[in-house]
């Protein structure tokens, strides 16, 4: 087909569409001038018809492209739904997987990622142990057998505290961020982990019957852990205040004078020192958690400890399941 002459741009887009619609049967039209007296008129017709044909072709191609794009979107959406379902299934099994929307940039690099992997392995083992414990409790196993399993679970808790103390040295902010936990668990985050006093509150009703002595013991334990938590929280607030003050003091004079630069560097050095003390707070918070669990274990009988550990695990499992639902929720 010959190129349309640029002189004869006689139609607007609307007109073209209308004309195209009338001719829109996909058939090409053969143009043949009938006689010489109509030649000039038929030349014009020819050009118009040629233009119309080209517009039709362009519109057809555009429709094909759009169709291909939509088909691609549809199949991507299907794939995405499948992936989300797989992810949800994996999460419900208690395996921790961080979603792309959740991932923080790990400045600690390998440390944080390594910890996350170790933590997910720790969770898997925990799930296995708890299942074993649940089976034993439900089948009315003897105290001796229960004790072995319960001791195993307690030892396993020691393991996570050991892992946490390692990562606290390398990347305390990863622990503090709670990004290694699921979203719903993060609601309850306190100094990089759970609040012992809250955990005990959960258990008090589930552990009946308790002897008078046990009741007093658990009550005291709850109070002690609460007091220690408050003390550590206040220390953290003091640290925040101190850090803010350190960074805010200093002259607002012209930059570049050696006095100001020395001031600035001095401030930064002091601030660095303060940041370094965060590790100590996380360590003491974990120490508190570990001590509280062990003390609870000592106050309770083996069977009561077993039920307590199951209840604690159920609590966190539900939070993790809630997190999975949350992450998979339909969004506008």
């Amino acid at each position, binding site marked *: 087909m010959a190129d349309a002459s640029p002189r004869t741009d006689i139609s607007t887009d609307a007109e073209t569409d209308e004309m195209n619609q009338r001719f829109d049967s996909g058939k090409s039209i053969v143009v043949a001038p009938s006689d010489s007296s109509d030649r000039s008129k038929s030349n014009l017709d020819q050009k118009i018809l040629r233009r119309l044909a080209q517009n039709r072709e362009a519109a057809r191609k555009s429709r094909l492209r759009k169709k291909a794009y939509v088909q691609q979107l549809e199949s991507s959406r299907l794939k995405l739904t499948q992936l989300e379902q797989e992810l949800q299934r994996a999460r419900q099994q208690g395996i921790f997987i961080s979603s792309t929307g959740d991932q923080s940039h790990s400045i600690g690099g390998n440390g944080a990622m390594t910890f996350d992997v170790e933590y997910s392995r720790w969770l898997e083992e925990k799930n296995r142990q708890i299942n074993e414990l649940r089976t034993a409790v439900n089948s009315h196993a003897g105290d001796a057998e229960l004790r072995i399993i319960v001791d195993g679970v307690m030892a396993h808790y020691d393991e996570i505290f050991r892992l946490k103390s390692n990562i606290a040295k390398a990347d305390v902010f990863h622990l503090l961020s709670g990004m290694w936990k699921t979203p719903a668990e993060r609601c309850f985050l306190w100094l990089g982990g759970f609040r012992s006093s809250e955990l005990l509150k959960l258990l008090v009703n589930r552990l009946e019957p308790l002897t008078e002595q046990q009741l007093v013991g658990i009550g*005291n334990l709850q109070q*002690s852990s609460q007091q*220690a938590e*408050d003390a550590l929280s206040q220390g953290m607030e*003091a*640290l925040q205040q101190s850090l803010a003050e350190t960074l805010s003091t200093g002259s607002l004079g012209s930059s570049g004078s050696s006095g100001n630069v020395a001031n600035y560097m001095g401030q930064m050095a002091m601030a660095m020192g303060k940041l370094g003390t965060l590790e100590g707070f996380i360590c*003491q918070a974990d120490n508190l958690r570990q001590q509280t669990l062990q003390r609870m274990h000592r106050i309770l009988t083996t069977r009561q400890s077993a039920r307590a550990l199951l209840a604690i695990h159920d609590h966190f499992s539900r939070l993790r399941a809630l997190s999975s639902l949350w992450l998979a929720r339909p969004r506008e």
Partner: protein
Amino acid sequence: MDRVRELASKKAAVIFTKSSCCMCYSIKTLFYELGASPAIHELDKDSYGREMERALRVLGCDPSVPAVFIGGRFVGSSKDVISLHVDGSLKQMLIDAKAIWF
């Protein structure tokens, strides 16, 4: 060490701290919460501060502050204090040393 011992025996509850130490602030808060009024000695404000800090390390206090003494006896640093508090021993020690009454 003598100075540490001397100061530690002057009151039922004694805590060696540094003014900038926030963990010391936590331990002090805990003692106040229990109703104790410990004597506080800030090593960075004491002319013998450095020697005292060394003496505390020799006693096994790590980090050197906060260093807690009850009834003149060395109890430990923050980790020890928290552990003792959780199992109820801290309160009993304070009662025995007459730092608190209940």
